[in-house]
């Protein structure tokens, strides 16, 4: 079995008397793409904010490579190799690709002056690594000139430079056209091929189905389904199941308790 990168056990989050998450188990192994699905208000963003250390859970454990981590916060999350690419606000759009990739972790001499050539070469290497190359832009291009999919590429290249083992993509394809979505998928596949993991959050089931190996469906703060691509077989069946979750009167073709994996 692949190395267990990160695991959440029975994580709960409540705001006063309102439960945002009511006991969620989730894990990501090395080299896999996990699709996190769910409707608005299902708890997806609370979950990724907990992973990023921005929000503190009210209950539950977080394990990194099998070791329980106490006092989980943003710095611990980064140390654990988790990098979250938040939708819309990830990049400084007036700066170059280079400046975005090295933001906060500039390559500089001991007086703080930048090694611009080294940064340039490193940026090109990172961009090549995820298949993010083009004839029309260079590492010196302004991010504001890039398309939506290309911007995700910059954020992913940055995550790899920051030695992320798990890249959390928050709705990376929501506002994108088909060709742009395909670009993002290309980056995601390259990242998986390099042995890193991705948690891909979305509400377009077709997008998530195409790219993920495994699916976790959240509904009203709970895990409604855990399954793999092999188990569901097609996006339609996954949609079918999610409709049953939304309208529980119908009989589900997947028993959530049976599909949910047991803890190691």
């Amino acid at each position, binding site marked *: 079995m692949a190395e267990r990168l990160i695991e959440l056990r029975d994580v709960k989050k409540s705001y006063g008397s309102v439960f945002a998450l009511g006991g969620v188990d989730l894990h990501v192994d090395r080299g896999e793409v996990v699709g996190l699905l769910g409707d608005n208000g299902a708890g997806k963003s609370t979950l990724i904010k907990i992973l990023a250390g921005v929000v503190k859970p009210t209950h539950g454990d977080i394990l990194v490579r099998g070791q329980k981590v106490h006092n989980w916060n943003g710095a611990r999350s980064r140390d654990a190799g988790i990098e979250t690419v938040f939708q819309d606000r990830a990049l400084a759009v007036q700066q170059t690709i280079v400046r975005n990739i090295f933001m906060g972790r500039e390559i500089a001499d001991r007086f703080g002056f930048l090694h611009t050539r080294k940064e340039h070469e490193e940026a090109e290497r990172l961009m090549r690594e995820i298949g993010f190359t083009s004839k029309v832009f260079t590492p010196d*291009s302004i991010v504001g000139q890039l398309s939506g999919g290309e911007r995700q590429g910059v954020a992913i290249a940055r995550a790899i430079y920051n030695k992320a083992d798990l890249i959390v993509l928050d709705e990376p394809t929501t506002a994108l056209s088909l060709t742009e979505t395909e670009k993002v998928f290309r980056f995601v596949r390259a990242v998986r091929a390099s042995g890193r993991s991705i948690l891909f959050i979305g509400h377009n089931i077709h997008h998530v189905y195409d790219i993920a190996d495994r699916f976790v469906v959240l509904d009203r703060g709970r895990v409604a389904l855990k399954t793999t691509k092999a188990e569901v077989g097609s996006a339609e069946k996954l949609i079918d199941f999610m409709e049953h979750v939304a309208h529980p009167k119908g009989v589900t073709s997947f028993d959530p308790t049976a599909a949910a994996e047991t803890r190691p």
Partner: protein
Amino acid sequence: MSATTETGTERRHPNSSPLRRFVVNNRAAIGTLGVFIVMMGIFIVANPQVFLSWPLYSSVLVTLPVALFLVVPLVFVVTVGEIDLSFPATMGFAAWVFALLVQAGINPFLAILAAIGTGLVLGAFVGAIVVYAGLSSLIATLGMNYMLRGLIMIITEGKSIALLGLRDSTAYQVFSSSIGSVPVQIFWALAFVVFSIFLYNRHRFGARVHAVGDNPDSAAQMGIDVQRIRIATFMYMGLGAALAGCFSVMINFTWWPTTGDGYLLPALASVFVGGTPAWGGIGTIAGGALGALIISFIQSGIISAGLTGFYVQFFNGLIIVLALLGHRWNQARYR
């Protein structure tokens, strides 16, 4: 927003030649240089006798350095997404410390260091108030400007300090004498401009100032201490204001309680005329320096061109508005 996509393979690399890249990266500063050249061309045509002889330039070179010490750090503050209107009072206050120490017989070099320390402390104080209390820097620094200036007025009761002895000091020789008919202070100011260009474009600090001004959320997520960077730009402003103050006193051999007051609007105008936009995240130091040059020449230029002093304000404003329009057209805006 102009989105570039991978359409044709025959499309040329946008930044292929170094010259082209230089032009694209410095288009704001180059635009400002264009404004300056056109303006000087008009002045020369209007009055070749004055504008083709040295004395006019010599007089601009005396006062321009003081403006440069203010405009250049102000570009950092604007780039980080803030504004500082308290620098005139900081300049007056730091110069006051300098003048008092020199008057007390302290070595002017040490007095300059003390003034720089004063500028840094005042900058840190102003920055901390703005950043930690989350105040609007526009209003808070305006208040600080009045408060500090008021403090100076209360204590000195409006009396100036004459320092004629400065003329015999080594510090004067080093910082504000003349080589031939070129005032020495311009070289110090240019050194400050060049250092600031490197700090702004080629240093970790400058990179972070850009990042924070562009997208503070993203910068914070990448582990940048956003508040510290913001305060640091106010401290750099304090440093520049202190240097401007010392030079001003060394040029005039006098400290006035109003020292610095007249620079508020010209320095601000220079930053924006220079091509630094008001919304933060980008800017140009060289452009700001050229903006200071433009503002310095307008006044003398209009008088020498044969118009009365009544025209100065009108043309000042005209140049500012035209320059802003030019930059708006010249630069793509991504936010």
